[in-house]
């Protein structure tokens, strides 16, 4: 999960330091690298508690509420949707009221079809009501984009939820339901990111069913499908030799789930991690050497070469699959651009999922 943390650290750093200039980007990174002191630290063995942990943790530097959905319309055409809310603290401190609050919020939203990908972003300061999260009743919002607990909301399933976002050329609104409780990633929610001990608190709800409407360029499409929410928070900066990451969340057959990522390092070695989640909700950590991830095809986007098709093998679990993107051009043209979109896979297992790649 370190990969995601790194990427989001970059992006969140960007939110603070200005709007889209390379300077700011570098500065955000440098800022993250220098003073984790004063922020709360991620330690093993701390039990997560709900609903409190659904809310923000201003003592930690960074945090997100991250939803991806694999959807299809009545004719079977596939779609993807993403809704993300990031929080970053510019300075330690738990003050949560007024402009002096050191919190910056950022929202990303996107929809993907086989022929189109639309993305949007927005920013806001904490402490004044423009953006934020309350655990009870559950409500995460920035501007008009929101994720809101509906009647009968359960803290353990994080459902049912209403999710909506809209931008100039796309919009969506879904209802999310889940029958199974959320699952803890890593080791009981303590997700290690490197051999150097960096970590985050990380839990997911991978069992959502989704139903609603999305619109691309004004055409409303009724869709249903599956969704996956990640919650993660940490203060630990990443090592400077980490250049990017490739992260998968896959819906396996028989209601099993797989989360894995590869963190690319400058020396060419990669840090692998993942969790295999069984149908009954047990989350089992995968050994780093049990994971094999190999790009099989690339796509050139925005002067970058992105590996959009992969071969994945977890021999110990008998998994040998090839993934292909729904839309190879699922490019998030946000202040800090990255690739994120729905994928389809086949082989020993088949199904759908989401792929996120940064640092290319």
């Amino acid at each position, binding site marked *: 999960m370190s990969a995601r943390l790194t990427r989001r650290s970059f992006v969140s750093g960007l939110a603070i*330091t200005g709007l*889209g200039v390379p*300077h700011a980007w570098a*500065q955000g990174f440098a800022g993250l690298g220098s003073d984790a002191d004063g922020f709360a630290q991620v330690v093993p063995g701390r039990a997560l508690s709900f609903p409190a942990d659904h809310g923000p943790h201003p003592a930690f530097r960074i945090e997100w509420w991250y939803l991806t959905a694999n959807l299809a319309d009545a004719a079977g055409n596939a779609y993807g949707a993403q809704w993300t809310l990031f929080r970053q603290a510019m300075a330690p401190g738990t003050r949560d009221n007024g*402009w002096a609050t050191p919190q910056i919020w950022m929202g990303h939203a996107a929809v993907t079809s086989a022929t189109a990908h639309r993305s949007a972003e927005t920013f*806001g300061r904490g402490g004044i009501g423009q953006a934020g999260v309350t655990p009870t009743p559950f409500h995460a919002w920035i501007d*008009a984009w929101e994720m809101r607990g509906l009647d009968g909301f359960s803290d353990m399933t994080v459902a049912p939820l209403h999710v909506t976002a809209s931008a100039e050329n796309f919009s969506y609104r879904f209802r999310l339901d889940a029958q199974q409780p959320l699952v803890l990633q890593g080791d009981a929610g303590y997700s290690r990111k490197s051999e150097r001990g960096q970590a985050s608190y990380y839990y997911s709800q991978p069992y959502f069913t989704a139903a609603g409407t999305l619109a691309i360029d004004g055409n409303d499409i009724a869709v249903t499908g599956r969704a996956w929410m990640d919650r993660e928070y940490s203060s630990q900066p990443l090592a400077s030799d980490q250049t990017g990451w490739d992260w998968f969340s896959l819906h396996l057959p028989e209601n099993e789930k797989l989360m894995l990522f590869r963190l690319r390092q400058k020396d060419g070695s990669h840090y692998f991690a993942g969790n295999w989640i069984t149908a009954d909700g047990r989350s089992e950590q995968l050994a780093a050497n049990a994971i094999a991830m190999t790009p099989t095809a690339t796509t050139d986007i925005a002067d970058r070469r992105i590996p959009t098709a992969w071969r994945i093998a977890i021999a110990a679990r008998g998994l040998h699959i090839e993934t292909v993107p729904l839309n190879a051009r699922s490019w998030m043209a946000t202040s800090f651009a990255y690739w994120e979109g729905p994928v389809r896979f086949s082989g020993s297992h088949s199904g759908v999922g989401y792929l996120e790649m940064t640092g290319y």
Partner: protein
Amino acid sequence: MRRALWVVAVLLSHWRRHPLQFATLMIGLIAATALWSGVQALNQQARTSYDRAAAAFGGTRTPMLVSPSGGAFAQQLFVDLRRAGWPVSPVLEARVQIEGRSVRLLGIEPVTMPPEASAAAEIGTAGAQAFIASPGQALISRETLTELGLRDGATPTLGNGQQLPPLKLQAALAPGVIVVDIGIAQTLLAMPDQLSRLLIGKAKGPRPNLESVTGQQLRLVQPESETDLERLTDSFHLNLTAFGLLSFVVGLFIVNSAIGLGFEQRLPMLRTLRACGVSARQPNAVLVLELVMIALLAGAVGLVCGYVIAALLLPDVAASLRGLYGAQIPGQLTLKPEWWLAGLAISVIGALLAAASSLLKAVRLPLLAAAQPYAWQQAQHRWLRLQGGGALLVFATAALVLWFGDSLIAGFIVLAALLLGAALALPVLLGLVLAVGERSTRRPLLRWFWADSRLQLSGLSLALMALLLALAVNVGVGTMVESFSRTFVGWLDGRLSSEIYLNAASEAQAREIRTWLAQRPDVQAVLPGSQAEIQFGGAPVQINGLPDHATFRDQWPLLDATPDAWDRVRDGDGALVSEQLSRRMQLTLGQSVTLPTPTGPWTVQVAAIYADYGNPKGQFTVNIDALLSHLPDSPQTRMGLRVAPENIAVLMDAIRARFGLDGRNLADQASVKKESLGIFNRTFAVTSALNAFTLGVAGVALLTSLLTLSNSRLPQLAPLWAIGLTRRQLAGIELMKTMCVALITALLALPLGLLVAWCLIAIVNVKAFGWRLPFHVFPLQLVALLAIALLAALVASLLPILKLVRMQPADLVRVFANER
């Protein structure tokens, strides 16, 4: 190809044989380009600064939401709009006092700030984290930093005792502005959760309509193509442009006469070339090419001169704009590439324009036409008659525009038509005068004197027209400036009636000072003042508060008043209205006016109208108690002190020592007066400088015309010499003739100039500034200008006259020997 080169060589050889003519052509083009480009550079510099100011975090270039009353509104409206999908960003703005100077404090929110509304990159590179997070930063331009006498990193204290975050230099920021984070601004201004306006970003997306989110609490203001500063300073720039254009036209007169002569003298050459088998097209193409090359060369030199002129005038222009409008113009001239290109283009276009008639003639030249070097003068003579008709037409236009027009542009059109018509009519008028002179005498030499003057007229007329224009504009502007300065001084005496003016650093200090002053026997009266600004009739308007005191009743200059004006003001239901405001809003005595204030509408009656020179904003003057009851937040830090003259110095020293006020916060009447006069003098210094340039160009035009004429005059002069007049006598007669036509021209320029002055005072000033000055005529000034004109004519004639005096008799004899 070879043939083309030969044609070029032949045609160019003309300039080699007539270097003076070439110099004339160059001087004309250089002068035209230089003055025009100089003025353009000044205008461009100023406009760039206005844009910078306007672009500063959502000036008037961004659509925005404001409260209908113009006041602050609750921050919750911002949150509500964002939550509804509106891409808005909050701004809080107020004026604050730093080091005794008034500065705009802008609170912005960099995270939601639309990139197009600001130079977001400026914040980005400065680091938004440092900007937002405690202690934050106060971004400031270099100009403002220098003006406040502070250094990067300083943390000055505001008038209300609050301390700014460390100053951070931001070169691209507009001068006169300090930018802080919105949260910091709310704290500094003690306005928690209050906003001044919301900028609307370009981001599109579904959003509900405004009323459904905020009701009637906010109103949409569409972006303006023109900023407040641009509107205010338009007249000033129009003024400059008009002068630039005038100089350009005068310069073109020179070019026209030089090119006309040059072409005419080359007609035999062209005929010979044609006879040698050169096609009609080739020499013409070469002529155009030659002209373009000369124009480019002269344009380049002109641009350099224009740059120098602009650089010399910039300090005065900047000072005037700051003094009059509060517009901040950097003192360093920066020019865009377009300026250079435009300068070269104007030079080429000007040259082609001036050469149009000559080129046409060369094109139509019949192969076997006899070479008639002076035929063009005759042709022009015929042409001049048509000019008389043209002049009448132009005058009629001026009258029509005067009758129907009601704008600044109309005012300038009347002026331009007046000048153009007069210029066109000049040769006709001169011809008439000279004809009358000719008829009035029977002595042969005198008759010849008048007749020859008339003959010469066509060659001199363009230069004389230039002289007429330059003189008339000089008279006009001189009269206006003199009228203004006389009126202004009298007005200033009335308005600056207190002996000492002071501005306390804070309200608390003001109270302390008042208490302290009350115990001093040498203080006759303390006259507190206060000022607020409201939106009235779609523009910001000042409300000035004064106590009821004999000082004002006796001395405040009123243009028009009801008999009980001051009593009405004292009672709080009367207001004095500035002349600008009364003209703009058409307010008349006794009319009721309702002013929007935070405490509700306030109705007052117009009790009097007063002159308020130099204030770009409209102003109401009311009783200070009435002001404070309706606008309780108005600062009360200013006061005027009445003191016996002998006690001024002692009291000022005491105040300085006791309260630490410096020259910017404490001043006596004399220095305030001096400063105000200084501002106005600098304003007109620019006009006077351009005036002088124009007159200079006219002088050069006269010189070049006389020089070009002097050679061609030999056939007329040689017979006189042959019948016994000495060369010295001939020279004297020639000088007399030039002086005579110059004098007549100058005399004609005087009434024309007074007419120009009237136009400036009665139309242009009223439209541009909103005030009308009493019209005075200053005879001494007119006499001086007359003398200058004659001096210019004398200087211009000297060289040709000297040439004549020193001419070898052989040259004169040759007139009879040579076949012409």
